[in-house]
């Protein structure tokens, strides 16, 4: 992907983040304010994007929705990266039985219908802002673990590691100072793609009613039951999805060249 495209993607993401952070200042109404005179209404001078089925301003909830959607995606990736780094590093550093157990774990997670299990877990976890990232991150760490493990395994016997050991560095110091920085780049790529994937998963869970629960708005849960709103208020039914698409597109453009098959686990 050309430099120009990547720069525009980064700028767009910056804009989305700034607007989401500033949501309370920018939004015309309070987050959950209800306008009983206009329920599921099309756009009007008062409500630029119309209102939802409870009479809440769609533009306001779209702005706030960005905050929660990005927050959940960020937390999910943090959980996934932490798990992936720890498990991958352990597998690559210790090798042997530890490596084999981690590989069995990866096999386990790649052998289940992940989205269905996430739905079950999300239903049990009850759709709070902190439980959904645990569900998504807890089942999305495999790619990170794989790249960290292979990086560790390939540099473990390099001479500079031997040199560090000879200089008296302990295992934890070698891992932290010499091996982890080696894995930073692939972990960052996996995390960027992970952000897009986490957004798609969160919005899919929310669309089905098992994600973050209202009144907290996310772009996904604004679309729960949107099928029935398509006729009367198409803007309200389509705008949040457009935001998800644009933001995911920008994240994926940033790491697109390395994306051969990663994103294939998107829920359908």
């Amino acid at each position, binding site marked *: 992907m050309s430099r120009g*495209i990547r720069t525009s993607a980064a700028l767009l993401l910056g804009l989305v983040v700034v607007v989401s952070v500033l949501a309370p200042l920018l939004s015309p109404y309070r987050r959950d304010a209800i306008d009983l005179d206009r329920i599921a209404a099309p756009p009007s001078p008062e409500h630029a994007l119309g209102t939802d089925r409870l009479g809440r301003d769609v533009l306001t909830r779209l702005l706030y929705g960005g905050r929660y959607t990005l927050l959940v995606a960020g937390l999910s990736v943090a959980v996934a990266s932490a798990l992936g780094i720890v498990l991958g590093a352990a597998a690559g550093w210790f090798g042997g039985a530890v490596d084999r157990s981690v590989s*069995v774990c990866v096999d386990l997670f790649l052998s289940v*219908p992940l989205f269905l*299990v996430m739905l*079950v877990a999300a239903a049990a976890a009850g759709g709070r802002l902190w439980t959904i990232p645990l569900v998504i991150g807890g089942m999305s760490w495999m790619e990170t673990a794989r790249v960290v493990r292979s990086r560790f395994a390939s540099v473990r016997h390099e001479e500079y590691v031997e040199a560090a050991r000879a200089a008296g560095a302990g295992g934890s110091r070698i891992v932290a100072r010499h091996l982890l920085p080696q894995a930073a780049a692939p972990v960052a790529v996996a995390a960027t793609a992970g952000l897009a994937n986490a957004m798609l998963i969160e919005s*899919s869970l929310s669309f089905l009613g098992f994600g973050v629960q209202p009144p907290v708005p996310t772009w996904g849960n604004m679309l729960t039951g*949107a099928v029935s709103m398509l006729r009367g208020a198409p803007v309200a039914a389509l705008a949040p999805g457009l935001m998800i698409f644009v933001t995911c597109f920008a*994240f994926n453009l940033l790491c697109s060249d390395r994306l*051969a098959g990663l994103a294939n686990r998107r829920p359908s």
Partner: protein
Amino acid sequence: MSRQIIRRLALAVPIVLLVSIAVFALLHLAPGGPAGIAAANPKASGEDIARIREHYGLDRPLPVQYLLWFRQTFLRFDFGTSYVTGRPVGEMIAQRLPATLELMGSALVLALIAGGVLGTLAAMRRGSSVDQLFMLGTTAGLSIPVFWLGLAAIYLFSIRLGLLPAGGREAIAAGGGGRLAHLVLPASVLAVAWCAAWSRYLRAGMVETLEGDFIRTARAKGLAERSVVLKHAMRGAALPAVTVLVMQLPALFTGAVITETVFGWPGMGRLFYEGLQRHDHSRVLGIVVISSLLIILMNTLGDILCMVLDPRVRPAPTEKGGAG
């Protein structure tokens, strides 16, 4: 080679065991279930609820309940009875399977054709503006939430243009035309989603193959580029693509929860989703377990294919096979 395969298949036992325990525990963690449904009914007395709990064995300790379910499922191959419909889960699955096969099968064929053509074209002109456009387009395709694509398609093609039905699956009795019309939108939406991923696998495999020595030889002996790509490179490039395809096959059974929900398609995905909404434990567990078994089987088959088709993979690699 065979040792590796046996090891993978042997792993199926602990995997299915762990998955079923996890899902069983999660289902029972969630509030509700048959007793919960009865409790929501103001006419149900405490005695009624206790009787319902006893009837479904819910008064026993969880581990005992799990062991009973395990014995029933794996020793008698019986997935139990649905709390909601009162019918055997196996029968409900069998009833929904044709609709899912129809939807997923047509989406898969559409995605294969479109993805094959697009991936090959991009690989032939790699680095050109066509290729750039392909990468941009497939990245977009990978970033679209499937439910939103479905919503947009319904809005455009059935509400605005009035061309196609917005959802449902016409009964077979109504004849061929209506049935096809109902299939077009959901199958195309799924196909777009899959095609983006699949064509990229194909392009990646093709580009890698086109850099091989035998391709240079083929070109050097004066073969037309068309023939080089379609006859020589395709065989090498198809390998990772076929492996990926085989690993997608379990979806033919699992269905597509989101697409089926958006379009009101009566397939496995919705059977699962409705089961989860109504706390129909045996239904949810049954579908997850069968799906897991299918995924393990097809992953193993993908590995075998990879080894049979590509001699280079045979000397037991430590890294898992497949495209990267």
